[in-house]
């Protein structure tokens, strides 16, 4: 009886605006938290995730794909790439088809804006965006990556399968204007979508 009375007389003053907010807040307390406890729980990165670019390694010929053609240097909006090229010794001995090869490659990750233009414009598919997002170091000079570091990181990326061999990718880009890219960048909902209700 009391409950009925209470509902009848007090529900109307209670059920207005602000109280709805209070109960919505209370409802949230029974849902699963959305927090990702970062260092212990690693975020699930998308296949297309872009951290700084790294260089790939041609395992067939055992040399980098990069020929030092400078296009990445030219297209880079923040001028963080410095490249120089040299004659390829393996071309003379006919091990490789690359006449020129990268001599030195410097990437200043401190200024890199991870835009992916260098990857887009590379003609030799020699550069790829890594997923190395936690790039903090204790000295800024350590953020300047040289050729060796970039190639090592690139090898890691290749092992992770974040990069497809150039033969297919190059033809893909050629036909990009006509056809839909069959790039299998599978699931896009990479971050987990925690179910709302408890």
């Amino acid at each position: 009886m009391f409950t009925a009375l209470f509902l009848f007389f007090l529900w109307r003053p209670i059920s207005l605006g602000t109280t709805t907010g209070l109960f919505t807040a209370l409802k949230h307390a029974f849902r699963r938290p959305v927090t990702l406890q970062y260092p212990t729980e690693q975020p699930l990165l998308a296949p297309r995730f872009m951290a700084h670019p790294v260089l790939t390694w041609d395992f067939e010929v055992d040399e980098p794909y990069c020929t030092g053609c400078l296009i990445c240097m030219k297209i880079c909006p923040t001028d963080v790439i410095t490249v120089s090229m040299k004659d390829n010794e393996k071309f003379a001995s006919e091990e490789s088809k690359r006449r020129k090869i990268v001599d030195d490659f410097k990437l200043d990750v401190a200024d890199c804006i991870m835009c992916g233009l260098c990857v887009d414009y590379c003609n030799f598919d020699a550069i790829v965006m890594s997923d190395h997002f936690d790039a903090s170091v204790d000295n800024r000079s350590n953020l300047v990556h040289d050729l060796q570091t970039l190639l090592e990181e690139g090898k890691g990326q290749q092992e992770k399968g974040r990069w497809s061999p150039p033969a297919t990718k190059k033809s893909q880009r050629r036909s990009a204007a006509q056809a839909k890219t069959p790039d299998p960048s599978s699931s896009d909902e990479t971050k987990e979508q925690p179910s709302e209700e408890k």
Partner: protein
Amino acid sequence: MSTDNFNQYTTEEFEAATRAVLGNIKVTVEPNFGELGVVCDRSDIVSICKILKQDTDISMEYLRSISVVDWVEHMEVVYHLSSIRHMNRIVIKVVVPIEDLKIDSVITVWSGADWHEREGHDLFGVEFVGHPDMSPLILYEGFEGFPGRKSFEIPVQETFYGD
């Protein structure tokens, strides 16, 4: 305010209407890449703006932006106007000679010209005569030079890498 009660002009009609409204003033009215371009003398700018805003057929009540373009030999102040009732757009271009970078302020016509003009003064050194406050808006006080101009060299800063 809705668009229902007003005529929607075609491009030609609008051009003709603008010409008719600006009858007495010496201007060039011609299409300018999808908008209606009006090129006028710098002494006429306030009167033209007033007419364009107050005329009910044109009613350019919305000043979209004021841009300054540095053509090295001269500066060009470009006013982009728009009418919300008619959905028509006008570009007014005014040439300001480099020796005498002065143009009348249109702040009396649109209050929204305020910061656009101050910005133009900051970056290009164009003085908008009649603007109540020409103090630096974007740059700090005491900044030397006009960074918007083509002649301005962006100082190259070496990246500091610590030890």
